[in-house]
């Protein structure tokens, strides 16, 4: 019997072979160490993400999320839903809020759900993985299993947008949240001064407005270097991907020489807990985190 159990909502990007698959790998290792049991919501579906606004319309988007609620509630009663992806978390929480504050919307949603043979009784709590770590466990608990502190390594804690706004982690400010820095310090790393920690990476506009998005990404990476960071750490799959994979293109366009690894907090924790490079999903990083690979090897 694990000390904590949750209904897990991995989200599309975290699936095997998908763009954030290594996030999933590291989260699984991390949870193993922390004795957290994550049971995937059976047959969960996409949250719609904020970018789908134009086509979806409000009700269908909410119905999608409601379906996940219903599935979780029926199959994993009494368990909070935990998402690792910022967009999934935001989409779910927003839907929960609107449903709970708008009975008309709730009624329509139920009608729609009936088509899929489902219904909602109570909507479970929606948590981000980070909330589980910080609020349900706490920094002290997270520190205990640390076997190999990431001594002397400098990280820029890049929180980004949607893990932080509009809901954010309780007790943290939207403009200068500290939890990621604290997580870094908890596993023995150094969190550098980083004034772009909540700057937007361009999100989905990385596809549709590459110039604008890459401009923003450039600012973020430059700030990380300015702060003396060797690596960037983030809790968000889209941030991770955007900041990591476009470095080559940005170098081409702006003549910069960016080559900075972008990792998930869960990867750092896995390593600090003594996990292997593989368990931390380091092989999933496009910009290889050599320093961490060596560290894991030792």
């Amino acid at each position, binding site marked *: 019997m694990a000390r904590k159990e949750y209904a897990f909502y991995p989200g599309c990007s975290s699936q095997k072979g998908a763009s954030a698959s290594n996030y999933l790998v590291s989260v699984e290792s991390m949870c193993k160490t922390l004795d957290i049991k994550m049971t995937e919501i059976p047959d969960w579906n996409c949250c719609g993400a904020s970018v789908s606004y134009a086509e979806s319309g409000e009700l269908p988007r909410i119905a999608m999320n409601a379906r996940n609620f219903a599935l979780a509630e029926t199959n994993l009663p009494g368990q909070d839903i935990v998402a690792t992806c910022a967009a999934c978390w935001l989409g779910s929480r927003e839907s929960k809020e609107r449903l709970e504050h708008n009975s008309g919307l709730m009624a329509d949603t139920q009608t729609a759900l009936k088509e899929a043979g489902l219904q909602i009784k109570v909507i479970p709590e929606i948590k981000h993985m980070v909330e589980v770590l910080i609020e349900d466990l706490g920094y002290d608990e997270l520190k205990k299993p640390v076997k190999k502190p990431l001594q002397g390594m400098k990280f820029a804690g890049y929180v980004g947008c949607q893990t932080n706004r509009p809901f954010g982690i309780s007790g943290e400010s939207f403009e200068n949240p500290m939890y990621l820095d604290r997580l870094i310090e908890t596993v023995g790393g150094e969190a550098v001064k980083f004034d772009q920690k909540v700057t937007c990476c361009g999100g989905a506009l990385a596809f549709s407005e590459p110039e604008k998005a890459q401009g923003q990404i450039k600012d973020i990476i430059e700030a990380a270097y300015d702060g003396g960071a060797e690596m960037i750490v983030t809790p968000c799959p889209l941030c991770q991907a955007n900041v990591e994979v476009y470095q080559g*293109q940005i170098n081409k366009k702006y003549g910069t020489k960016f080559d900075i690894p972008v990792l998930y907090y869960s990867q750092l924790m896995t390593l600090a807990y003594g996990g292997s490079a593989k368990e931390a999903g380091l092989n999933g990083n496009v910009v290889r985190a050599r320093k961490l690979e060596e560290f894991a090897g030792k």
Partner: protein
Amino acid sequence: MSDMNTQMAERYKNNFLKEIEEQAEMGEWVKMCMQCGLCSGSCPTNFHSGWDHPPQEIFMLIRAGKREEVLNAQGMYMCTSCYNCYVRCPRKVPVTHVMHGIAEYAYRIGRAPKTQPTMHLSKTFWTNATKNGRVNEVQLTQSLYFKDGISAGIKKAMEMQSVALGLVKAGRLNLLEAVGIAHKCKDVKGIHAMLAKAKELEAKRKEAKA
């Protein structure tokens, strides 16, 4: 579609504010803006490159009844959903959602520019995500690149080759998805039925308002 536009224009005569309040998601917040400009100043894309009409100005245009300017504006498609404006607005206007709402409305009445890349993305994403209940990233990417035809697509794909390659190597891009071998929900049928119903009800609600 564009007759939908004229219908609406007809129905609301010169009261564009009312049109937005009733038809656009969160449109009822437009009237609460006090023109401080905090949203415009907080917007990352606007801050970075600027565009024709930032949020607060779009709100003013709506109140001034400037239907054409608003429906032709680029602003609402520039939202990255970063929620800076949303959390800062001193009037607690959910600016992010209002902008999405206006964009969605423009699209619904056929006024969103056909070539608007973000709208295309939005549409593609939703179609892709709802087809099987989960996103097929490869097909999503493909359909995005090839939106302007094969050649343009290949050109883009070439530009992005390095990126794609990197992802494949890292095991984060499963080319099999291209041919549809991808993650799916089991109850796709149910999902589609649910969405059909949702769309139907949504339309009803909009009607009821007007």
